[in-house]
């Protein structure tokens, strides 16, 4: 079993699926039908592999596991280097889990260029998993930026009316950020002489250089996160993206920013991290309050969820940069939990959008009458998003705040107001869409969730509850790696102050 290159399989299996997709022949209908089945089968197989990874993963080991290393460009010292640790493990599983969900969610709603659509999703899966598994900074960069291409196409080709504007906005923002990051990675490479992430972590550069490199990486990760004020691409992208696009965007893509902080910014530039903590705190608190207030006045369901996502990500950055055990764990947990909840919420929007073809809240109302099962599922997810104890949303949010509270009470207090505001906008959404009396005659004829929709929503809902009651399943696996990160960070900071004292 150990001989099987599990991680490479995870990364490249979707591409094999793509190969098969390209080979499909026949009429329009046959291609579409076969493409759906092939893509689903491939993604389910990847999920199976991801679950195998989860089972075989050793929770007590804080380092990288299943490491694979091959020389890639020997002259430059670049290598194909994969590995998984507690930080990346669940992001891989999340990506592998959400891809089949997305494919099922697009089963009937995507009618044009089905084959190309499925190819885009499988390529996206490769890049996503690759990003989380790469242990070489250039390999990481290739995957990290590669994600943008299929995402750009998914929004730009299968999106809504203003899809081109949104797609370009997304591209512009992320590209600007990543160009700067590329410079940072190049500088690191020339300075340290290696592109291997573990080695880069082990050999930190000087304090001044750290500052610049930190800022450069921050530009890229903050856009992905997204943090205020570089968040405005997200609502537009969500609104125009097809349902599955939104799901993957909210579910996985936003987590790449947080992952980047944990993999690059904090361990490689610890001194700069310490220096910039107040800056990150400020941006996060603004994000939480500002975007919650903006979410409150939205008319478009997807926009509302998108804005509240930005607020949720604010809790993530707060938690991570509190650099306390609880904060780090809470940040990571919040990302995974948000990956499930927001993905499911976008699916919920997709369910009613498929029926009424509008995302305007005022067009809905009173649908609980015809769709009781939908109302129940949506309710649980809404509560998860609000952070009700017993759902996964609570654990992440609370731990993150607990971490911040120990370092800065004022920041924690401001951020906690987001709990009130967040509740207000989600309840408003639910009330306007699900409760009330039916005003729109078309809404009267809407049918409850069908089997396919139940099949994709129910696992998500169950996981949200299960992780709320037994979060230790994740926490015990992410714990050692994050503890190692924290110790590494503290050692670096301490070393610095120690030398200060000596002088």
């Amino acid at each position: 079993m150990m001989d099987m290159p599990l991680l490479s399989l995870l990364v490249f299996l979707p591409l094999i699926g793509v190969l098969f997709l390209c080979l499909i022949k026949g009429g329009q209908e046959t291609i579409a039908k076969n493409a759906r089945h092939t893509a689903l089968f491939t993604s389910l197989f990847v999920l199976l592999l991801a679950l195998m990874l989860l089972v075989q993963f050793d929770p007590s080991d804080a380092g990288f596991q299943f490491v694979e290393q091959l020389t890639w460009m020997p002259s430059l010292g670049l290598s194909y280097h994969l590995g998984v640790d507690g930080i990346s493990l669940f992001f891989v599983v999340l990506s592998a889990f959400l891809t089949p969900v997305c494919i099922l969610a697009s089963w009937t709603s995507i009618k044009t260029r089905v084959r190309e659509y499925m190819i885009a999703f499988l390529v996206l899966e490769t890049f996503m998993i690759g990003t989380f598994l790469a242990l070489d900074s250039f390999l990481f960069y290739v995957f990290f930026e590669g994600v943008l291409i299929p995402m750009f196409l998914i929004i730009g080709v299968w999106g809504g009316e203003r899809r081109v504007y949104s797609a370009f906005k997304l591209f512009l923002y992320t590209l600007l950020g990543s160009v700067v990051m590329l410079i940072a990675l190049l500088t690191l490479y020339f300075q340290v002489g290696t592109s291997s992430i573990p080695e880069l972590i082990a050999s930190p550069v000087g304090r001044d250089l750290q500052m610049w490199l930190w800022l450069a990486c921050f530009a890229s990760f903050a856009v992905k996160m997204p943090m205020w004020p570089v968040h405005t691409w997200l609502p537009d992208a969500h609104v125009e993206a097809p349902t599955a696009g939104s799901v993957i965007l909210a579910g996985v893509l936003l987590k790449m920013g947080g992952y980047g902080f944990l993999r690059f910014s904090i361990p490689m530039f610890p001194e700069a991290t310490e220096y910039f903590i107040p800056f990150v705190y400020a941006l996060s608190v603004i994000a939480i309050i500002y975007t919650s207030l903006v979410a409150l006045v939205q008319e478009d369901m997807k926009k509302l969820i998108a804005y509240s996502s930005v607020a949720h990500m604010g809790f993530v950055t707060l938690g991570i940069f509190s650099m306390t055990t609880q904060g780090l764990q809470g940040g990571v947990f919040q990302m995974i939990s948000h990956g499930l909840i927001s993905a499911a919420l976008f699916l919920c929007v997709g369910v009613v959008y498929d029926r009424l073809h509008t995302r305007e809240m005022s067009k809905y109302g009173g649908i609980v009458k015809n769709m009781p099962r939908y109302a129940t599922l949506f309710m649980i997810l809404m509560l998860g998003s609000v952070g009700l104890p017993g759902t996964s949303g609570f654990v992440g949010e609370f731990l993150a705040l607990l971490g911040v509270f120990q370092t800065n009470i004022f920041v924690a207090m401001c951020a906690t107001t987001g709990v009130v505001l967040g509740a207000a906008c989600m309840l408003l959404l639910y009330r306007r869409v699900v409760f009330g009396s039916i005003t729109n005659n078309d809404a009267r004829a809407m049918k409850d969730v069908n089997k396919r929709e139940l099949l994709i929503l129910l696992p998500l809902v169950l996981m949200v509850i299960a992780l709320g009651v037994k979060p230790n399943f994740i926490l015990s696996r992410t714990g050692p790696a994050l503890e190692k990160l924290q110790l590494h960070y503290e050692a670096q900071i301490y070393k610095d102050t120690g030398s200060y004292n000596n002088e």
Partner: protein
Amino acid sequence: MDYIAVFTPLVTFLFVGLFGKSIGDKASQFITCAGIIVSAVCSVMLFNDVILHANSRILFLSSWIDVGTFSVEWSLRIDQLTVVMMNVITIVSACVHVYSVGYMSHDKAKARFMAYLSLFTFAMLMLVTSDNLLQLFFGWEGVGLASYLLIGFWNHKESANAASMKAFIVNRVGDFGLALGIMAIFMIFGSVNFSTIFENVQAHTGDVIKFLGHEFHALTVIGLLLFIGAMGKSAQLGLHTWLPDAMEGPTPVSALIHAATMVTAGVFLVARFSPLYEYAPDALMVVTLVGGTTALIAATIAMTQFDIKRVIAYSTMSQLGYMFFALGVSAYGAAMFHLMTHAFFKALLFLGAGSVIHAMSDEQDMRNMGGLWTKIPVTYCLMWIGGLALAGIPLFAGYYSKDMILESAYADHTWFGEYAFWAGIAAAFMTAFYTWRLMILTFHGKSRAPIEVQKKIHESPKIMLFPLMVLAMGAVFSGAYFYDGFVGEGRTHFWESSLHVLPENDTIENAHHVPEWVKSLPLVMGVSGIALAYVFYLFFPVLPSIFRKIFMPFHLLFYRKWFFDEIYNVFFVKTARGLGKLFWKRGDKALIDGLGPDGLSSLSHRIGRRLGQMQTGFIYHYAFVMVVSVVGLLSWVFLRTNGGIL
């Protein structure tokens, strides 16, 4: 037995919630009622075991969250305080479950309603049995959720939806305090487990919390933060606006959640933290002041309302104020005593009001009632019992507990204790007055209802009256029977270590030795309040309108509920929406997008056009640009290698 008591409601909730449609209404009602009765029986047995045999225990269920030093478990803490709460909850809940079978007989979603009631009961039991703050928070939010679902039960009504949302969000404001309190406790004590906290309180009495450059006494800060949470849940002044609106829910819900159990969670929280509050006298002072003021103001509002349920709702708020100032003067036992008696007689009053509303074809305005007592005599008698208990007439339960609270406040001998005492005395007078105002407007005089409603007036079915009788028993006997254990000689043995009072703060002991006039004043107030109500509403019905004219500004202030809703609406709701719009249109769209992507794209558009003009087609132009660029690049590289710039 412990597990059966706590988890039966969860099982029935899940079963009926999932399969309610397929097993039908009758079966759903039977299962949920049976479940809660089983739970109630177990609770009574626990009462015997834990209190009479002093056998408190903590049962470990499972781990929950382990992060570094932050370790929380799912567990059940079965001690004296818990068991008292469990009995109140399960007995009242059982009555309400059975009552609902009759009350909701015309409703379509019976199974859903019963499932929600069971969910609420489970969450409330989790709240009171928790052994750490986080599980308490789970129950705390769980009851909030059940309350939200039940207030908005008739979700086709806009007003019900607005009320349920308001309840959730105002409670969230309280939770904001509670959550910060939990974090502060973790920071100071390194744990959120009750045992650890209470054992180490004395070691932390000198601790300070630094906030914005100032130092604050840690225990006081914690006490105040927890109290903010309690204020939200228990509808204390400032965070009370949701409670009257919550009357949009079906009446059994109002009785169970918004009178007997959930709203007392705040009282329970403070009582549970008595070991901590004892060392935070400033926090206790705030609790006393807020409690006393709430008791007074809520009573003034209750005197002027016409909706029968709202009168009782404001009465509940006022009585909760009593409980809080009892806590504030360290008379925890007295607060818990009043909590229990109040649960019985207030649930009785609410369910009685429900019976009236049921008889009146869903009419709630007392101006359209009157003359009902001959038509629904059983309800009338039961309401009398509830009213007498609420007004604090001897032999009825409320007399014992309310007197005890007022005497304790007097015996505290501090300025705020004195304040609370007089506020309580004034409120006691008003309580009796508005209760009999309610009784007379509803049951006496000529009927003011439309003819078609009058024809349909009927006594409620037995299934609704029986639970009322059970509660009436509690409203009559619970005061005299439990007096000794809760606040009398047997109290130390009764509570054991679950309540903690410093010897110098033992106001209950002092309360037994207050002057005679203090002991009799509440009764005098109660009787004169009743008498005045008779004068006003039965003998000289013109008097209310005359008084209304004379005291116009006061009446307006009371009638409009001291304008809390209007003020909050302007300050919070409108401001939040305004800021949201501002940030969105000006911030996101104009500023960030304007300078960012949209600005860049229009900029690049312009530059592109310029560049287009530069593409003249002449080779030497291009060559020139190339040469200049190469020179520029090279010089940059040289400068760099020479260490010139970088």
